[in-house]
C-alpha cells in the first residue's frame, strides 16, 4: 500500500498495547491507570483501522468498530472519573493502594 507492510503497523499497536498494560500494573494513581487504559484502547483502534485498510479495503467495518470504541471509551472515561471523584471524597487520596478494603 503505502510501502509499509502490515506487520510494522501491528508492531506499533502491539507495543502500544503493552506499554499501556505496563502502566496499568505499575501506576499507583487511579487517574494514571485510566490513562493507561486509554492507551490500550487506542492500540486496538489502530489495529482495526490497519486491518480494514490492508486486508479488507472494500469494506468499512473496521472504521465502524473504531468509531464505536471511541464512543464507548468516552463514556467509560466519564464514569471512571465520576467513580474516582467519589472515591476521593471518602478516602481523600487517589492512591490505589489506599483502597484495600476488599482484603481478606
Amino acid at each position, binding site marked *: 500500500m503505502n510501502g509499509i507492510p502490515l506487520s510494522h503497523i501491528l508492531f506499533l499497536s502491539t507495543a502500544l498495547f503493552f506499554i499501556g498494560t505496563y502502566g496499568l500494573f505499575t501506576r499507583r494513581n487511579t487517574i494514571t491507570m485510566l*490513562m493507561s487504559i486509554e492507551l490500550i484502547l487506542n492500540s486496538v483502534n489502530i489495529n482495526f483501522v490497519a486491518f480494514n485498510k490492508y486486508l*479488507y479495503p472494500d469494506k468499512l467495518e473496521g472504521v465502524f468498530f473504531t468509531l464505536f470504541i471511541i464512543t464507548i471509551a468516552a463514556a467509560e472515561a466519564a464514569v471512571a472519573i465520576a467513580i474516582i471523584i467519589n472515591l476521593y471524597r471518602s478516602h481523600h487520596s487517589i492512591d490505589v493502594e489506599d483502597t484495600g478494603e476488599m482484603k481478606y
Partner: protein
Amino acid sequence: MSASAIVFYCLAAFILGTGLLAVTTGKIFRSAIWLLFSLTGIAGLYFWLQMEFIAAVQIIVYVGGIVVLIIFSLFLTQASGKEMLRPAPGRVVFSALAVVAGFALTFLLIHQHIFLPVAKPALEASVSNIGLQMLSTTEHGYLLPFELASMLLLAAMIGCIVIAIKIKPAGK
C-alpha cells in the same frame, strides 16, 4: 525508502515515545500531557492511513474530550503538581518482565502469520460512504449498534451524575 515510510516511522516513534513517557513520568500533569501528545500522534497516523474521518473523531473526542476530562479531574482531586508515589521496585521489574514476555509472544504469533489481502476494489472511507453504510438497514448496516450507543451514552451520563453527586445534608 519513500517519504511516506519515513513519515510513518517518525509517527510511530513519536507515539511510542510519548506513550512510554506517559506511563513512567513522575509528575501527574506531565503524564496527562504526554498522553495528549500520544493521542495526537495516533490521529496523525490515521491521517497517514487516509482515514480522515477517524482522525477527526479521534481529535475531537479523545484529545479534546477525554484528556480534558482527565485534566479536570486532576485539578478536582488536587493531585497536580505533586510528585507521584513510586511503585515498589519489585513490582516494576516483575511487570516489565511480564509485559516484555507478552509482547514477545504476541509478536511471534503475528510474525508467523501470513496476512492475505482481499483482492477487491478499494472503497474510499469518505464521510458520505461511512454515513451511508453505517446507517443503512440493509447491506451490512450498523444502525442498531448506533442507536444502542446513543442509549449507552445517555445511561453513562446519568450514571456519572448519580455517582458523583454530592448530597446536601438536610437542614442546611
